[in-house]
Each structure stands twice: as structure tokens, then as C-alpha cells.
């Protein structure tokens, strides 16, 4: 029994594993999307029958659209120019059809592949980049007031102003009809994914950028990211195939107003209620053959009857 008692005290229930997995998915996907945002999305307008593809391999330094336009390029050889989102331009010379397109001044490199029919004059390539911060989330599990970091009312650009997500286990209901008596118990669990947004009123040239509106926007953005990530087809089983049967966002609720009455720090929060189905298990006993059982019954001096029982198991 010693081994079984240890099993009771160690490890996690599935509800804890799923909770931690939800947080891990949000954190990992947030980080991954930030990296992808820095690379930009490449699109083309091609002239003639050119069939190259290109992708950005460098971290682009500006948010917006980089437009690469053809100069005097003929069959991949010649001069090109590119215009950055801030209007600055850069040019390069391509001496061979398979050259990567390097725009040093713009901090951009386009890796060109599949060059059966290379760059043509008048080809236009556009690279759209995004602000990685739009995908940034700070993720917690089972915290009651992670937003207290905003008590000092930090500036909006401060890292602490990033939206917060706290994942908490709420409850699980067991379905007797879908369970067996011994080991597996079908559970329908609810997890609260609380998304907090923060805003600080900022002066603008025209007037002000209100903190409450920013907090609302940030909270909604965090909730939108969390819902889209968790409901993405890639996470149908939350990365726990064989354990998780299904997941579903049942509701998105705005938090009660009292959270918003911390007036110096504008905070808006939304709660995603995520339902997840999986099986909980119970510790099982590995049986051992009993080689001998015996008992000795004797009468005590007081007339009370005693039984001495012994069992012998294999080594």
C-alpha cells in the first residue's frame, strides 16, 4: 500500500494538467505570433510569367508596408528599389537571378526561391509588417489579482501595461453513464480564462486618449486573442490527444463593474468560460498472487475469542 499512498500524494489530476496546458498554449502562441509579426507577410504583383516566391527572413524595423518595386531588372539582374513605411527608400543591385534581395538600409532581406522564371521588370512585392505587441499576453494560473501591477498607473508603453490572462479551474462534473466503476471517470470541466486590459489617459495633440476606452480595447483584444487561439483547429484537443475529447468556449462575460472602480488604474476584464471534456483516472491496484492464508483462533483468559490471521505473497 505504500506505493499507492504515494500515488495519491503526487502528480496532478487531469483538470490541473488541462489548466496548465491552456495557459501554456496561450503563452506559446502569443510568443510565436509575435515572432511571425516581425517577419511580415509577403505578397506579390507579378508581371509576365515570373514564378518566384520570397519570404522575409529578417526582423523588419517598421510597422506597415514595405513595397519593393522593380527598377531596371531583367531576368533577375539589375537594380531594384524599395520603399519603407516611413517613406525612405533603398536600392540594390542584383547580379544574378538567384540573389536574395537585401535591403540593408531598411533592415530587410527577402529570400527568393523557385526561380525558374525570375524577377521581371515591373514586378512589385509588398511586405506588410505588424506591431508584435498586438499579440503579447502575460499569462498566469490561479491568480486572484494579477492586475495589481497596474496600481502605480504605469505608462501605456510600459511592459506592465500588457494585457493579462489568468487561467483558473472552476469545476468539473462527472458523468456516471460515460464512466466505468473502476478507473476512468468522464469529466466535463469549466475553466475561467480571465482577460484583463489596462488603460491610462494620455494627452494627445487634439485632446486626450481616454484610459477607460483603452482599457476596454485592451481587454477585448486579450479576450479575442485567447478565444481565437483556444478555438483554433490546431488546438481541438488542446495538444493533449488521448486525454482531451473536446473543448468549447461557452461564453464571454464582462466582469462586474466594481473592478472598474479602481479609478486611478482603468481596468476592464472579460471572462471566457472554457468547457473541456476529458477523463479523470483513479489509482489502480496491481494484484499479487496470495500463496498462503492461515488463521489461528484461540480463547483468551477472559473468554474473549482472538483470531491471528496471516497471508503470504510471492517475493
Amino acid at each position, binding site marked *: 500500500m505504500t506505493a499507492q499512498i504515494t500515488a495519491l500524494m503526487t502528480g496532478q489530476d487531469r483538470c490541473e494538467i488541462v489548466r496548465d496546458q491552456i495557459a501554456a498554449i496561450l503563452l506559446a502562441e502569443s510568443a510565436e505570433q509575435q515572432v511571425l509579426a516581425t517577419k511580415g507577410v509577403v505578397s506579390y504583383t507579378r508581371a509576365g510569367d515570373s514564378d518566384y516566391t520570397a519570404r522575409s527572413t529578417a526582423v523588419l524595423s517598421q510597422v506597415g508596408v514595405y513595397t519593393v518595386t522593380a527598377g531596371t531588372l531583367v531576368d533577375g539582374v539589375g537594380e531594384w528599389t524599395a520603399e519603407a513605411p516611413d517613406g525612405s527608400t533603398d536600392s540594390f543591385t542584383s547580379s544574378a537571378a538567384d540573389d536574395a534581395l537585401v535591403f540593408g538600409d531598411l533592415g530587410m532581406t527577402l529570400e527568393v526561391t523557385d526561380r525558374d522564371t525570375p524577377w521581371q521588370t515591373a514586378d512589385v512585392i509588398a511586405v506588410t509588417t505588424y506591431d508584435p505587441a498586438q499579440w503579447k499576453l502575460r499569462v498566469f494560473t490561479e491568480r486572484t*489579482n494579477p492586475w*495589481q501591477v497596474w*496600481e*502605480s*498607473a504605469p*505608462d*501605456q508603453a510600459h511592459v506592465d501595461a500588457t494585457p493579462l490572462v489568468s487561467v483558473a479551474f472552476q469545476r468539473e462534473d462527472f458523468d456516471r453513464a460515460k464512466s466505468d466503476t473502476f478507473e476512468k471517470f468522464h469529466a466535463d470541466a469549466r475553466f475561467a480564462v480571465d482577460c484583463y486590459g489596462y488603460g*491610462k*489617459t*494620455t*494627452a*494627445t495633440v*487634439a*485632446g*486626450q*486618449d*481616454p*484610459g*477607460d476606452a483603452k482599457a476596454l480595447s485592451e481587454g477585448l483584444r486579450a479576450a479575442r486573442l485567447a478565444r481565437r487561439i483556444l478555438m483554433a483547429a490546431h488546438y481541438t484537443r488542446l495538444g493533449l490527444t488521448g486525454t482531451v475529447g473536446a473543448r468549447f468556449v461557452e461564453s464571454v462575460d464582462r466582469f*462586474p463593474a*466594481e473592478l472598474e*472602480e*479602481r*479609478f*486611478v*488604474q*482603468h481596468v476592464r476584464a472579460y471572462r471566457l468560460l472554457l468547457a473541456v471534456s476529458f477523463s479523470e483516472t483513479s489509482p489502480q491496484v496491481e494484484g499479487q498472487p496470495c500463496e498462503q492464508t492461515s488463521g489461528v483462533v484461540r480463547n483468551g483468559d477472559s473468554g474473549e475469542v482472538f483470531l491471528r490471521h496471516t497471508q503470504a505473497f510471492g517475493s
Partner: protein
Amino acid sequence: MDLRSVAAADLATTVEGDGVAVIVTDPDGASAELTGLAADVGALIDPETDTMVSGRQATVTLRVASLTAAGMGVPVGIAETASKPWRITVADVEGTTHDFAVGRAFHDRTIGVVTCMLEGYDPT
């Protein structure tokens, strides 16, 4: 002296007798240094559960007569983005200066006082 005049005199002593320096700036940029009561606390009472919760709430209380004498109007919360908010600059007990915007204002016309609920403000 009627009762209201007595209350107004008491108000001047209460609000400004032991008050702190408060710089008030209106949406047009006009400002004045007044004396008022300032509070900045980090513990609130949850109205639903009556339990103490963390959360920062800052207020200043000013005498309307002093605002008027300084040529200022009465602060209000301004929602529109095309206007600057009413701004308050006040130092805490350690001497650190904080910039706030007026989020809400409670104007008590009976006794002539206004209490401003303050929110964090980045003036840059």
C-alpha cells in the same frame, strides 16, 4: 451669520486650513495653485462582499469659492477625445508629484465643495 455662512466658514478651515497644494489645470490650459484635501489610497471595499480589496483610488477636494476666485470653473469629467481633461497635479506625503486627470467630479452646491475622482494621466 446664518447657518450656511457658518458652514462655509468652517469649510474654509476644514479644506484649506490643513490642506495641501493642488495645481488645477482646465481643458484650455489655464492653471491655478489652490489648497485642498488630497487622498490616495490602495485599499477599497468591495460593495458586493464588503471585503477589503486592493485598488487605487485618488481624490482631491476643493472649495468652489477658491476655484472661482482663481478664475477657474468647476472641474468635471470630460469624455470626448477632442478636449484635454481637467488635470490635477499633487504631491504625496513623500513629496513625489503625481499627474492625474479628473475622471468624475461630485459638485456639492449646498456647501460649495467639489470632490474629484482622479485617474492616471500621462501628460507627455
